[in-house]
């Protein structure tokens, strides 16, 4: 029986678990108690969950977030989303082929009235911004209900194994995302005025000023708040390319969920589309989980993400193809390879530059859109509403934490609680945390070859400051104390005591320490290391790399140790000639063969590119309507069913916009499709107040 569980992870604990048995198409399989059906299937190597009703093409998981409907299975006769539903002992799971047959029900279940609650504040979303707002409200003793559709609080923080950027003072910079989630969770639960409803999905904000919530995934309730805070985060943008619905094409969030939350290996060789922070970090996470990363394409000439993230990835041996795009995911029934090509300034692929790479998964990380529909509904319906974090503006989690804190105060104020003036400096900090990466400076390589010298390979202006707080002597400085500036070591080679706190604490893994004290000609270099300890050991020869991933030759590992002040980041010490020692920024983890192109490039699959994943509507169908003069997306919906499917236009709307743009139609001529409740599909019985005994 294949087993695709992650058994060891350098950062995440891999707990023991209780095994239960379920069946897939009648075959008994083992699952981990408490995991989702999707995770259980992936752990058993099952990646095709059904077939599309329109064209019979295979369906796999795409969002792993309960938003799309690609991962539908039939469990004990009921159609449901395998990414959200927990597997139960003895559960009979079948693929969702064609339309599901509704189970027979002979008896009318007991139906109850829908419970109604009143609360001063309803917070939708328990990610960084929602939790931070709830904490501030909790501190002030203001009653609030916080709902989140996941079982665990923290939103996407629970998927982030890396240390966070931002400000140490304001927003836990330097701490890993998963640990920030734990801290926020603990703190919010310490405030008795905040009620936490996990596993509870907000379904709709109604015009009679009530909010429909599927509490604990089982009971439909209505909440009437005085104020709503929408902190529902973001959803991923989708991309139109041939083969984009093949099982194995994942959103970045889905991949991170399966790997870092569910601890399963959804793939062995991954190709990444998109060089923003999400794509770069997801690549790093894949490597940490022992999944090969074949390469990454970015359409722009430079990656949009932080340079330190990009550098980390290239130093692991992952090639980054800028000014490239994905042409197709290829394979029969699943992803088997990917074809990419160079693009010109108009983003058109250049013929002759196609290359194919073998891989079994494609990760799409081409940007995020705010999930803000509840906010707009609340405003339309006259409910006092606030919006925070990614739901307001796409930025880093650090910015979301801080914006949540500010919104918490603003909400308190709006309820008439005397909180004084909200300091102007907070709003400034909020803006700073949202700032995009700035200028890139050349590396400053120290010329001295004595004592101990930290070398800072972080050369891009980004809002981040842990290094400046980690040096016990305060020798790493940010100009004008602006966390966006590039750090400098202001000491001399005799000031540093080689505590290595900066090496292990830098979230970008961009600081090394060169120690000339033992042998000035062959100094030791301390390098941060966050991968499996089994892969390397003392006296191994490894390829050493500069910041950009260029090889500086081979050298021996002289030591491998833990910094007592750090958690889970190891220090690898190598010995190198004094000329190259300060240039060393990392060691190569991934071997070269995985990233080699295939001998011939694979022709595009014959099918047209799918724009609407739910109803399988192609770009060609929509483009021809645009050319016929269609300008109302509602009319396109009428004719093609695009936007009519299970996800409610969550994935295709932005792609349809893009097609209009490609056809040279400006947005002011285009009418957007109507957005209607409800947020996710919910069984009728829930709205009728079915009691659980009725099952």
């Amino acid at each position, binding site marked *: 029986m294949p087993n695709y569980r992650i058994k060891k992870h350098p950062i995440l604990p891999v707990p023991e678990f209780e095994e239960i048995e379920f069946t897939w198409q009648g075959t008994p399989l083992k699952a981990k108690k408490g995991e989702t059906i999707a995770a259980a299937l992936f752990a058993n190597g099952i990646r095709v969950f059904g077939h599309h*009703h329109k064209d019979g093409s295979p369906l796999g998981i795409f969002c792993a977030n309960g938003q799309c*409907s690609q991962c539908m299975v039939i469990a004990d006769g*009921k*159609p449901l989303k395998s990414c959200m539903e927990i597997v139960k002992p003895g559960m009979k799971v079948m693929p969702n082929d*064609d*339309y*599901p*047959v*509704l*189970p*027979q*029900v*002979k*008896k*009318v*279940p007991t*139906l109850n*009235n*829908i419970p109604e609650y009143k609360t001063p504040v309803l917070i939708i979303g328990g990610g960084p911004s929602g939790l931070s707002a709830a904490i501030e409200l909790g501190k002030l003793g203001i009653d609030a209900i916080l709902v989140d559709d996941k079982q665990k609080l923290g939103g996407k923080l629970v998927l982030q194994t890396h240390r966070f950027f931002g400000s140490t003072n304001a927003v836990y910079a330097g701490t890993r995302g998963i640990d920030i989630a734990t801290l926020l969770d603990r703190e919010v639960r310490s405030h008795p005025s905040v009620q936490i409803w996990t596993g509870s999905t907000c379904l*709709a904000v*109604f*015009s*009679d000023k*009530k*909010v*429909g919530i599927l509490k604990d995934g089982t009971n*439909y309730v*209505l909440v009437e708040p005085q104020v709503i805070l929408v902190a529902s985060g973001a959803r991923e943008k989708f991309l139109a390319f041939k083969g984009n619905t093949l099982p194995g094409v994942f959103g970045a969030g889905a991949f991170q969920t399966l790997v870092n939350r569910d601890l399963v290996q959804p793939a062995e060789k991954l190709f990444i589309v998109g060089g923003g922070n999400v794509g770069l970090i997801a690549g790093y996470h894949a490597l940490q989980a022992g999944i090969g990363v074949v390469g990454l394409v970015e359409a722009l000439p430079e990656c949009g993400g932080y340079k330190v993230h990009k550098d980390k990835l290239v130093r692991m041996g992952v090639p980054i193809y800028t000014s490239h795009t994905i042409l197709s995911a290829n394979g029969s029934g699943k992803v088997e390879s990917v074809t990419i090509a160079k693009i010109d300034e108009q983003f058109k692929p250049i013929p002759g530059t196609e290359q194919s790479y073998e891989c079994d998964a494609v990760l799409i990380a081409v940007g995020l859109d705010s999930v803000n529909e509840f906010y707009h509904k609340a405003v*339309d*319906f006259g409910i006092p509403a606030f919006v925070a974090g990614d739901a307001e503006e796409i930025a880093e989690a650090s910015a979301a934490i801080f914006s949540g804190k500010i919104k918490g105060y603003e909400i308190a104020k709006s309820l008439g609680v005397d909180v004084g003036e909200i300091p102007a400096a907070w709003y400034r900090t909020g803006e700073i945390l949202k700032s995009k990466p700035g200028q890139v400076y050349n590396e400053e390589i120290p010329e001295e070859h004595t004592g101990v010298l930290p070398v800072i390979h972080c050369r891009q202006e980004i809002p981040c400051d842990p290094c400046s707080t980690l040096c016990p002597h305060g020798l790493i400085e940010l100009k004008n104390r602006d966390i966006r500036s590039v750090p400098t070591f202001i000491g001399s080679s005799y000031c540093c005591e080689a505590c290595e706190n900066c090496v292990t604490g830098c979230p970008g893994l961009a600081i090394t320490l060169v120690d000339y004290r033992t042998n000035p000609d062959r100094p030791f270099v301390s390098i941060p290391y966050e991968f499996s300890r089994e892969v390397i050991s003392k006296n191994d020869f490894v390829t050493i790399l500069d910041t950009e991933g260029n090889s500086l030759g081979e050298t021996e590992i002289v030591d491998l140790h833990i910094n007592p002040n750090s958690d889970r980041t190891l220090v690898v010490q190598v010995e190198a000639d004094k000329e190259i020692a300060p240039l060393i920024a990392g060691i190569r983890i991934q071997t070269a063969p995985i990233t080699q192109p295939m001998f011939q490039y694979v022709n595009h699959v014959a099918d047209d590119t799918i724009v609407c994943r739910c109803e399988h509507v192609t770009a060609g169908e929509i483009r021809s309507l645009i050319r016929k003069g*269609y*300008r*109302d997306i*509602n*009319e396109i919906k*009428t*004719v093609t069913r695009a936007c009519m499917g*299970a996800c*409610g236009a969550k994935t295709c709307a932005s792609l349809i916009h893009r097609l209009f743009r490609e056809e040279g139609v400006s947005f002011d001529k285009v*009418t957007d499709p*109507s957005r*209607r*409740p*409800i947020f996710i*599909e*919910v*069984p*009728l*019985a829930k*709205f*009728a*107040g*079915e009691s659980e005994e*009725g099952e």
Partner: protein
Amino acid sequence: MSTDNQYDAIIIGAGSLGTPTAYYLAKAGLKILVLESVASVGQGSNKRAIGGIRATHSDPAKIRLCLRSIEIFSHFHEEFGEDIEWDQCGYTFVAYSPREEKILKDLLSVQKSYGLVNDWYEHHDLLKIVPDLNPEGLIGGTFSPYDGSASPLLANHAYYSHARDLGVDFHFSEPVTGFDIDHGRIKAVQTRNGKYSSYIVINTAGPFAADVGKMAGIDLPIRPDSHEAAITEPVARFLGPMVVDIRPAPGSSNYYFYQHITGQIIFCITPSPNAWGTDVNETSVFLPMVSKRMIEIMPRLKNIRVRRTWRGLYPMTPDGFPIIGWSPEISNFLLGIGLCGQGFMLGPSTGELLTRLVTKTLTIEDNETLSYLSPLRKFEGQELLK
């Protein structure tokens, strides 16, 4: 004014009635302009209709008109070459108490006399037609096998593209702002883009028909009533006909649901008291109210997942019957208004009827039909199967 702006007829509203009317008038050789306030065809009430098409009414006019509509819908593919998801699934009105049994049985003779095929089925026989009905308390019900359902969106869009092929001008996002009226006749229709003149003007503005009337200085007894509806995920076919339950309950006077040809269940409830006005924003009341009623008569529905909800307007008249005919006050103003939420099923045949009114080719039967729907009637009766 250029001759470009001169039309034989201007139709106000590209909805369930205006669009087929445009098609049939153009087919009769007339030069037609359709003015629509929103961005594309059928985006007002048409797209909010649930798609039921029945001739099972309580009065001769609507029975006759809908029998004709059913004929058109069932031959739509042959005539227009387009699939509008027509499904001759039938309609069943169920009786769980003697009140409904009596209403439904009493109507049968009237219905049959106008050519409707509709019969009463006792408990066991009805369960053969709709096996998933809750048998407890079920007395029986009527079943009319030739009624059906189709996609309002696709049907209206098909009329639209064929009307365009016949040369009809459609102006979208161009609401009517006023009329030039002279000696009891509309001389020109005003919009923000200018004036259009026409021999006749046809009001098919659905829930906004009274607003259009007001611009012409006349009062039209149309009041929109707002109903909520919803659609589920698709599941394998298990339900044949549209099921209508006319039992009143707190908050609603009836509700109905069917399984569309795409496998999705579409359902709707009639609020009681009426929700007057043009508010189409979703409320928290609808889903709990309707789902409880649906599960009580069909427990099998409990596991189907609701996908989306919406709300649409029923342009009601005082007696629940449409108003079709020439305006008594303005001689070239033709009214196709107050279709009371049945615009989609009445649209094709009423479009033909309006065309015969314009081309003066009415039959004896037409004149009888129109007498029931006259703008001059006293609005005293009440439709029994609203």
